[in-house]
């Protein structure tokens, strides 16, 4: 059972090691090895979960609602696995892309503490513990975003920090209010208490605080500002790490909370979620089509795609939840990949501005193929992963008769396609606008595109083996929509 603690303690060990390692080269190698081991460990967890459906560990051996409980159900372990894969790819990518002024070996301290925070957030079954992991994640990301110390990084860092700090404080406030009302912090226990209570509408205020806090983290519509103004400032390795992981943790928390215990006033919540999802999708999509800088386009994409996940949660049928999870997984992989490729492009051309780059198709057809896989996956072109996710969501939307928001989702699909094709057209197909200016030619080596290959295969695999992933996600959705299973397994009280 102790294996569940692995995703927390192993990165912790790596953090310590990285603090002490001075040689940059050694740190890089250790990081790759470490993240590979991380994948193995998490695969073990995943295997155990698929055998037992759910794994529970009470830290310190204290009984359930009193100890901090670590829970790995399908959703958690799936997220863990995807995270591990992404982290591995990025640690490979970082080998060449983390430069002298980006903190060198110290980079890995924050890298792995971020991993620790993300893993912890996915695996914990305790509200306050979740807060702690959020903070770990948050602070790591603060540091990572400012690592190069360039002016715009500091500026983006301040914005990022300010808005996220507010989120954390709101989270803490909501948590305090929740504890004041229910007297417990264990998620399963909370669910049990709130399930029977008639006055449960009174917890709506704390639910609201949680909602806004997670909403800020997940970058939903009226509160997403931090994302576009900061993501594009950091080193591309870091940006792609963030793109893959950070907002998704917010989405994960929303899914967890609003399926497990904030299920009382569902009419209100689901309407709110759907409204917000609609706006998030459309605004993100529109903003993405307005920009001409790769990273910004991709950043706005993140927002627009968060909308889909929220929409899945708002529709709240098993299929919709499964779709949301599917979408999250797909998005994590594809999004990271596009950012990684944007980084390679930047290294080849020295800029992210689409107007100043071109001719990449000729220069590196391999890169073109690698780009078009995640790009089309994002646009939802079959048979890549995005199609199935969108398909599930749209199907669920129509079946549950949410025509409006579903139409918005479809329309956003076109916007996504538009902006993706824009990048493709401008960066790959177009001739280089300024042929005379000879940039010191950087040819992406194998190690630079290896991560993209891994993730691209992931995107394809999610599409080709959609059956298995669908089974996993629908099992996860099943578990989420039957909180009793979760509650009983943790509290060991079978009523």
């Amino acid at each position, binding site marked *: 059972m102790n294996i569940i603690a692995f995703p927390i303690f192993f990165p912790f060990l790596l953090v310590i090691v990285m603090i002490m390692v001075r040689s940059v080269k050694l740190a890089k190698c250790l990081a790759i090895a470490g993240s590979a081991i991380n994948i193995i460990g998490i695969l073990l967890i995943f295997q155990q979960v698929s055998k037992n459906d759910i794994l529970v560990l009470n830290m310190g051996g204290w009984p359930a609602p009193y100890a901090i409980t670590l829970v790995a159900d399908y959703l958690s372990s799936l997220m863990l696995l995807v995270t591990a894969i992404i982290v591995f790819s990025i640690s490979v990518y970082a080998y060449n892309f983390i430069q002298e002024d980006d903190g060198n070996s110290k980079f890995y301290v924050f890298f792995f503490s971020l991993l620790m925070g993300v893993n912890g957030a996915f695996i914990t079954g305790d509200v306050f513990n979740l807060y702690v992991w959020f903070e770990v994640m948050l602070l790591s990301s603060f540091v990572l975003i400012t690592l190069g110390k360039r002016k715009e990084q500091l500026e983006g860092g301040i914005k990022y920090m300010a808005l996220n700090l507010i989120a954390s404080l709101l989270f803490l406030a909501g948590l305090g209010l929740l504890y004041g009302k229910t007297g417990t912090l264990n998620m399963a226990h909370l669910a049990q208490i709130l399930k029977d209570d008639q006055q449960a509408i009174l917890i709506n205020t704390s639910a609201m605080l949680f909602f806004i806090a997670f909403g800020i983290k997940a970058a939903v519509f009226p509160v997403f500002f931090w994302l576009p103004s900061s993501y594009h400032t950091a080193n591309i390795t870091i940006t792609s790490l963030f793109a893959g992981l950070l907002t998704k943790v917010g989405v994960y928390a929303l899914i967890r909370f609003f399926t497990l215990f904030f299920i009382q006033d569902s009419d209100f919540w689901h309407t709110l979620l759907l409204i917000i999802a609609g706006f998030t999708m459309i605004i993100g999509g529109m903003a993405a089509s307005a920009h001409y800088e790769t990273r910004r386009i991709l950043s706005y994409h993140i927002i627009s795609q968060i909308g889909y996940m929220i929409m899945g949660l708002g529709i709240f049928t098993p299929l919709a939840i499964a779709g949301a999870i599917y979408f999250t997984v797909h998005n994590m992989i594809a999004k990271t990949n596009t950012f990684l490729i944007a980084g390679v492009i930047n290294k080849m051309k020295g800029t992210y501005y689409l107007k100043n780059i071109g001719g990449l198709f000729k220069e590196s057809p391999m890169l073109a193929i690698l780009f078009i896989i995640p790009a089309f996956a994002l646009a939802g072109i079959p048979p890549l992963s995005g199609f199935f996710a969108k398909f599930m969501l749209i199907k669920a939307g129509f079946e549950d008769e949410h025509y409006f928001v579903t139409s918005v989702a479809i329309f956003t699909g076109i916007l996504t396609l538009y902006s993706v094709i824009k990048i493709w057209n401008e960066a790959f*197909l177009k001739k280089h606008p300024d042929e005379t200016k000879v940039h010191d030619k950087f040819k992406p080596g194998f190690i630079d595109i290896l991560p993209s290959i891994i993730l691209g295969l992931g995107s394809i695999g999610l599409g080709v083996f959609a059956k298995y992933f669908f089974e996993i996600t629908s099992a996860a959705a099943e578990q989420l929509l039957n909180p009793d299973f979760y509650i009983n397994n943790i509290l060991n009280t079978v009523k």
Partner: protein
Amino acid sequence: MLYILLIYLGLSFAIFLIPEKFKKYTAFIIAILQLSVFAYFFRFFPKISNGEKISLVKDWIPDLNLNFSFLLDGLSFLFVLLVTFIGFLVFLYAKAYMKGYSGTSRFYFYLTLFSGAMLGLVLSENMIQLFVFWELTSVLSFLLISFFNEKIASRKAAFQSLFVTGFGGLSLLAGLILLGSITDSYSITDWIQNSAIIKTDSKYLPALILILLGVFTKSAQFPFHFWLPGAMQAPTPVSSYLHSATMVKAGIFLLFRLNPVLGGTTEWTYIIPVIGVITMLTGSYLSITQKDLKAVLAYTTISALGVLVLLIGIDTKISIKAAFIFLFVHAFYKAALFMLAGFIDKKTGTRDIDSLGGLIFVMPIGFIVGSVALFSMAGIPPMLGFIGKELIYEAKVQSPGMGFLVLILGVASNIFMVIISLVLMSKAFFGQTKSNIKQLGLNEGLFLVGPIVLAMLSVGFGVFPDLLSNYIEPALQIVTGDSMQIKLKIGHGFNEVFFLSLFTVLSGIIVFYLLNKYPNLLYNWRSFNSKVFSIDFADLFSYGIASFNRFSENNTKLIQHGYHRYYILTIILFTTVLLWFQVYITRGWQSDMELTLRPLYITGLIAIIIISALYCAFAKSRLATIIAMGVTGYGISFIYLYYSAVDLAITQIIVETLTVVLFVLVLQKLPKFAILSRLRSRMRDAVIALAFGSVMTILALKAIDLEFNRPISDYYIENSYLKAYGKNVVNVILVDFRALDTLGEVTVLTIASLGVFVLLKSKKEKR
């Protein structure tokens, strides 16, 4: 069938593996594959003509009703033959055409994959699977159009086509899912069985419109037709394969497929023919004034597609029959013409019809083939086109409802067709040679293989139409639902249809004669057209995209304006509004707490904290602000202390002191406060702050008041000493009961400190 598709997939990737030596045989290999697939399917003909259906189902995601489900019936059989046979010819042609371009492997890769996708599309029984192939063809079409990627026009055209078809694809998906949600299945067989239910369902109309959007975009119907002329930027094999014979017919195929499910309703018979007619007329009318050879062909293709849509929309047996015939007619002559056009392009180096001429001497075989195809297009006997046209007229004459108007417009459109055929023929083949003729080497024969075969087919089926009718019958049965004998012959006797045909040809010739006699007429016509139809749809599209871009740019600037304070303001306002809303909802709640001021010293302390906090907010001196902040912190720590939290109070005091110390020490390096905002904005902020603060007060009161459950901390108090051997319960919670929190906290601190260290470390110095 699945294996065949896999073969396509495998082969397309294998193209990259073919060694350099054998690269030049790539096209042959694929052509042979196409031919053998054609032969493979052809074997099924006896079964198909018996009305049998061959199907194959492989599980994919059964829970989502998604399966790999293939169906070979009359309809798909027909299309399979078309796809593979023309594919065969096109690859042969491409072998000749693509010589000398770089990236041929890529080209063949796309094209092979496309054939596979197209086959998959027509063989699909599951509609979502069909959609998958549908999107694949769109994507491949995009890639093929943008094959000459360094030309801006081809990039633009590719983008246009992908955007339009992508848009259509998504709405198609939506429509299919809507339909699927009625029957809870995506199998066309199930749909046909439940068609009565579907037609009466309230989701029928939206689903129909969405699906038609998909069909119309794919098949280049008005007003989405503009992408097709643009797509002529693709290499010519692509034009002749995708954009005349197969891909654009995917929409037609889908209409055939769905006819039994959705057809026959008023909506169906009104929407589709109207669009079809408009498209037909627009296409043929605009084709006359084009200069580019391929553009002319593209517009006639649009017109032909319009005809097909119109015929399916009329939805009578005869019209469906006509549609099938015309499908073949068009495929044969148009593919041939495109190939020829490519050949001419290669030969002369231009596609401008005004600068062509006298090609009859250069390529006599080409002339023969070309005139056969053009006659077929014009509907002159004994070509297959004639039979097609006859049938179309017949269908139109018999069409219910608005038959008369349709007929007139149809005739007009056909007159244009005749004219354009004659124009093309005269301009290209007769007159004087105006351009340099290039010698293309030994492969010239290869260019003509395809056109020759197709032209022969046009003639052959024209003379012996019964050969064709055998193949059409099963398909017709699938679409219309009952079997019927098709009798095709050249002459129908002297009925109204014949006179119509005669009239069409004659008036076409007359107009052509006039045009020839007064060359100015054509130019005037052109300028007239360019004035009247100055709104080019492609430009309109670009304009639309641009203005949308501008709109979203402005919008983005409005939202992501860069004023950090307003971001925070938005968040706070959002939070406040939602929280007040919740408070309003639960306004029935009442507190039984009383306002007491006892003990007085705490009240006094609170007063001081409040004053110092307020002072902090408005003070002008930085240090004073920080000192006041320290006072607030000390005050709060006393409150903690008063309410029994000893460790907490100590920590608060130390942390407060440390914060003050660090703050003050850094302060010397920071600037002075400046009052930067105006009074009004400060007032606004104060109001917002108060709104937020007050709602938090209410929440706090509510939280104190409500208690659903006895806190879990009793357990901690009970067991702290017994099991964890510590008397200080808070500390025991920190290091034992909830040690993981502390672990996280320590990590946070570590990161923060290392972060500060990395942030402030100067670059050279290394510690």
